[in-house]
């Protein structure tokens, strides 16, 4: 049934920052586990039965089977509840929902991942999918963070700063709040680590626009600035993908909350998205 949720057991809880926790889960029923196939950019609805539901992006990669991961920021009632859960606890899950990124279509191309804050969660799925599959020309990760303490998946980011080049993966990090740790990172990896915002990371970069896709996820204010950088370099609106957030209740096109657009084009962020191209945003008013 559409709104039934399946039991998933929390295998591990990892504190990523003071606000974000990474939950590793697996369905209790092995059959459901086997059937659970998803794409980077898709999301699930987490059900804490008797308390409520909320949508969360899958931040693990489908190339690693047997579990999936959710990075949850504590912001309100439900996410606070989620943060109290421990290893061994059960939550309900339904999904995966949404269209996801067109990973197959982008094979052989260069990917520029542009993440701001929590936007790192869905893009981490793309990142590891791309690295695992080895089917992409080059991978850039431009990541804008507030402070050192806010860097999500810090171990992975630092690991890729160190060793990414060997895998054709170029990581760049912009931070806003100065701290000894940041300065230490900057010393080690300048100019790839710098003080500033995510758009500063584009400085001095040029791309083969015929063979490049950009994938963006971040807070609502970020999109316009990042898109400007990409358009300045003549990247086609059809090659710019972004994943968007809206209030969502059902995740499957029924509850009406995520509807965006005007009389010429209406989109449901949950089922037509959450991944849209910049061209979609040009033809559907209000997407960004």
């Amino acid at each position, binding site marked *: 049934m*559409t*709104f*039934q949720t399946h039991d998933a057991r929390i295998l591990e809880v990892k504190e990523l920052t003071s606000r974000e926790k990474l939950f590793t889960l697996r369905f209790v029923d092995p059959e459901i586990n086997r059937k659970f196939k998803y794409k980077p950019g898709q999301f699930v609805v987490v059900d804490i039965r008797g*308390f409520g539901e909320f949508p969360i992006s899958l931040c693990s990669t489908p190339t690693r089977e047997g579990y999936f991961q959710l990075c949850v920021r504590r912001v309100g009632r439900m996410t606070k509840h989620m943060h109290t859960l421990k290893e061994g606890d059960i939550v309900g899950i339904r999904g995966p929902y949404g269209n996801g990124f067109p990973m197959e279509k982008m094979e052989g191309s260069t990917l520029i991942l542009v993440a701001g804050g929590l936007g790192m969660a869905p893009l981490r799925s793309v990142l590891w999918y791309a690295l695992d599959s080895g089917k992409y020309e080059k991978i850039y990760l431009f990541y804008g963070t507030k402070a050192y303490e806010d860097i999500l998946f810090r171990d992975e980011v630092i690991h890729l700063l160190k060793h990414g080049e060997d895998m054709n993966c170029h990581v760049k990090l912009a931070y806003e709040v100065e701290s000894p740790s940041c300065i230490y990172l900057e010393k080690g990896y300048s100019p790839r680590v710098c003080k500033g915002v995510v758009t500063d990371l584009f400085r001095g970069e040029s791309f083969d626009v015929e063979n490049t896709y950009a994938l963006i996820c971040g807070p609502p204010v970020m999109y316009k600035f990042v898109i400007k950088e990409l358009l300045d370099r003549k990247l086609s609106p059809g090659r710019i993908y972004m994943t968007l957030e809206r209030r969502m209740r059902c995740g499957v096109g029924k509850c009406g909350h995520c509807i965006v657009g*005007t009389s010429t084009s209406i989109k449901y962020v949950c089922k037509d998205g959450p991944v849209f191209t910049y061209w979609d945003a040009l033809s559907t008013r209000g997407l960004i």
Partner: protein
Amino acid sequence: MIVLRYVKLPQENFEEFFNSLKRWGKLYAPVKKGDIYSFQNVETLSEIALDYTRTMLPPKKFFVRPKDEMLKLKEGHWEEANGTEPIVLFGVHSCDIHGLEILDKVYLSDPVDPYYKKRRENSIIIGISCMPDEYCFCKSLGTDFAMHGFDLFLHELPDGWLVRVGSVKGHEIAWGSEELFENVTEEDFHHFREFEEKRTNSFKRSLNKEGLADILDLAFDSPVWKKYERICLGCGNCNMVCPTCRCYEVCDLWINAYEAVRVRRYDSCFMETHGLVAGGHNFRPTRLDRFRHRYYCKNYFDPESGFNCVGCGRCDEFCPAKIEHVKVLDKVREGLQ
């Protein structure tokens, strides 16, 4: 007698036919309650307001209820909550039949909404002809006549009803009471045409659809929206009464210390929380955003299902600020020229 697409129900058999419908399910029909009409459970024909204009809540209330239990929590797991009983909706106007078909597109598309589907499958729709009042503009939207979406449709004749059979179920219903029906005569068809002509000429309001989608989109920053923002009270009545509005909120409620239910209830895009996400960001922060959003949603022309408005006039009749749907759109159009 062989029942086909058209049969006649003579006036003297009307009551018996009406009573026979109870065999098929619990009977609901429009009745007058104070100043308004409402679909209510009825026992006798005399309770019904056959010449009603529009009910306050459209028939959607039987399929997506104002407050609706979805799931029940039993020992940590959800069980499907509601049983469904067969119902007969008697006296549905064509605009509302179109409204239900628009809801079908939403709720029956993959993945199916199980509650809606079960109730739809357990319902019989008997349409009835009507005369427009000052609020109706269904004709301009092409929703003034239903070609499908009903089981039987009754058209008023001077001495009875011309009945259109719209489904296999409708055929079975007519067959079940075949002694009550007669063949349709040329004269009946003549009267039917006469009624339809009279009806067509009685519309006082119409929506100018010409290029509407583009005009509205271009008028995104029109001062007309700002003017209405000041008049609109943001009460959300227009959403509640609209046959195609169906946004819902969900929440879990504890009945006692052991049992909880997951409930959904009508939501309205006029509420500030409708576009609010965590962290306090609101995608439609002002009343202007919300007012405009409703008009865009209603006047989006979906190539598969047409407009999201069926011209029933409810949002006009029940707006406490007397805002008129067609007038808003005309003003926006004028503002652009």
